[in-house]
């Protein structure tokens, strides 16, 4: 479905200091699969999301969607075609809706941009069907302003919007970090249901427990570098990279206290590990298990793992 190869993004804050926000990241998202990008602030996870949504231009690397390299596309029609299949939901629901219009304007824009010749009633039917499928009563939502609705409702409207376009890939950038504990589970369960219906997703978050709960594969990012990736269970039960291990130990859990965490066996690949703090250049991804990869230093030829 989505193939990302060697993606990098550098911002030059001032002519000397060039910040490498994303450093040679490669991964893929298959159909009906949720891949979560986990990392703390400044790890580049949102930048990757924005590049997949073509809101930011990558400095290098390729993004293939159905074997078409979208970073080379220029025309607006090809861009629109892409947005027909790839959609996004953003972090702050109250900023994603223009405060001076009613919320259902987002649907009207879709009607005008993507289905200009569809009859109004047919379109209204599809809107109401989509709203119902995300657990919202159309009457309560249509015609309201965004400050009259809760964060959970607004995010679900955006998901309904993606359903209306029959999108195949959804980029969810921290969509529940602004929601209350009780409503955030609703949205997560909704994402789970949509995965069953074949929608694949890139779930960007800084909360490991959410990643663990919802995603099939996980990618752990640190300072723009993909330090570890693979099947969620394998990575979380047997983390190898020192950063993923410290991250997993720092997560506050409800079942065990920090000082009572069982000690983990030593990492098997300590020597070859790529440490973004001190190693320069780009890492190489090395497979160390069935669907379990870690970033290794490229400059040590011949070290067997």
């Amino acid at each position, binding site marked *: 479905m989505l193939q990302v190869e060697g993606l990098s993004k550098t911002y030059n*804050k*001032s*002519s*000397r*200091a060039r910040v490498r926000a994303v450093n040679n990241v490669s991964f893929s998202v298959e159909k009906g699969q949720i891949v979560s990008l986990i990392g703390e602030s400044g790890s580049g996870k949102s930048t990757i999301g924005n590049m997949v949504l073509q809101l930011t231009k990558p400095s290098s690397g390729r993004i293939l969607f159905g074997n078409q390299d979208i970073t080379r596309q220029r025309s607006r029609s090809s861009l629109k075609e892409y947005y027909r299949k790839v959609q996004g939901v953003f972090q702050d629901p109250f900023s994603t809706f223009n405060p001076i219009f009613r919320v259902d304007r987002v649907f009207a824009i879709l009607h005008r941009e993507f289905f200009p010749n569809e009859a109004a009633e047919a379109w209204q039917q599809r809107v109401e069907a989509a709203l119902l499928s995300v657990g919202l009563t159309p009457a309560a939502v249509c015609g309201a302003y965004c400050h009259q609705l809760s964060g959970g409702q607004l995010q679900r409207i955006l998901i309904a919007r993606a359903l209306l376009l029959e999108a195949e890939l959804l980029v969810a950038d921290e969509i529940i970090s602004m929601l209350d504990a009780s409503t955030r589970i609703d949205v997560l369960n909704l994402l789970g249901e949509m995965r069953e219906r074949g929608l694949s997703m890139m779930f960007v978050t800084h909360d490991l427990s959410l990643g663990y709960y919802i995603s099939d594969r996980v990618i752990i990012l640190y300072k723009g570098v993909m330090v570890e990736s693979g099947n969620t269970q394998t990575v979380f039960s047997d983390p190898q990279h020192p950063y993923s291990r410290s991250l997993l130990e720092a997560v506050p859990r409800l079942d065990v206290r920090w000082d009572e965490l069982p000690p983990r066996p030593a990492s098997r690949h300590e020597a070859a590990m790529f440490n973004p703090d001190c190693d320069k250049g780009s890492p190489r991804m090395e497979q160390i298990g069935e669907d379990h990869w870690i970033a290794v230093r490229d400059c040590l030829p011949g070290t067997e793992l």
Partner: protein
Amino acid sequence: MKKYISRKIFMYLLTFFVAISINWLIPRMMPGDPILNLISKLSRQATNNARLYAELNQKFGMDKPLFSQYLLYLKNLTQGDLGQSIIFYPKTVAAIVSKALPYSLTLTIPAILLSFLVGNYLGALAARKKMLDNTVLPFWYVLTATPYLWLSMLLAWLLGSKLNLFPISGAYSFSRLPSATLSFVLDYLHHWVLPFASIFFVQLGGWAIGMRNLIIYELDADYSKYLRALGAPDKLVRRYAYRNARLPQITGLAVQLGVVVVGAITTEVVFGYPGIGLILAQAILGQDYFVVQGAFLMVVLCVLGANFFIDIAYIFIDPRVRHSMIGD
């Protein structure tokens, strides 16, 4: 740090270069031949225009291509030769303008600085005392809305001709010659008060209002809340808020310089104060374009110089700017 300053210097040089070019370009943009244009205006002056026409032609080198004219213009400029004045015929423009500059500076600089200090203080006061805020604040709005020239005329008429407290024309009484004696200085100050007052009061309102709004924002900032949560007395909270609110006012000072020039020009005309403004007004009435251009360059030079100075000084005043410049 050095990179930031060098970029600033480049910007100001570029700005000055653009100002000069505009000054040179405008007469040429106007319809018709600029020289004929000037001559037709000059013909009303009963000077022998044949000689003047030859001199102007030679001065502008009109036959040469446009670009070399421009180089000629720049060359003259570097030697401080701003051309010949028409209405004050024998004197060169450079002489006239440099004689008028000190008067303008002694009028505008004190007016700007004092109005800045007093205005900010009053603004901070208004943010504190509700009574002051409701009574005096609207008066300040009217002050900033007053055209400089009207306030000058009011003061000149009221305190000058009606009550005869202050002279209302010239920088010093005609019977005296500029000398360093005390009596001359007193007489000079006596003439200086009214023009100073008219610039000072109009500027005052602007600073006071600006400070009042800025302080209210600072008093509502997180660091003020934290100070109050730690039981710090109002005196400290206000001291910090006042210091931080004054920083954006300093950048405001740089922008305000360009605006205060308007006031200076019209005030000088009302009081016949022999500064750049008066020269400029007389040159316009007398269609003397060389003096107009010369005065324009002097005004632009002063404003650019002051702005550059404030920009550089601001780096040392506000640590946030210094930090963002060096990068963390």
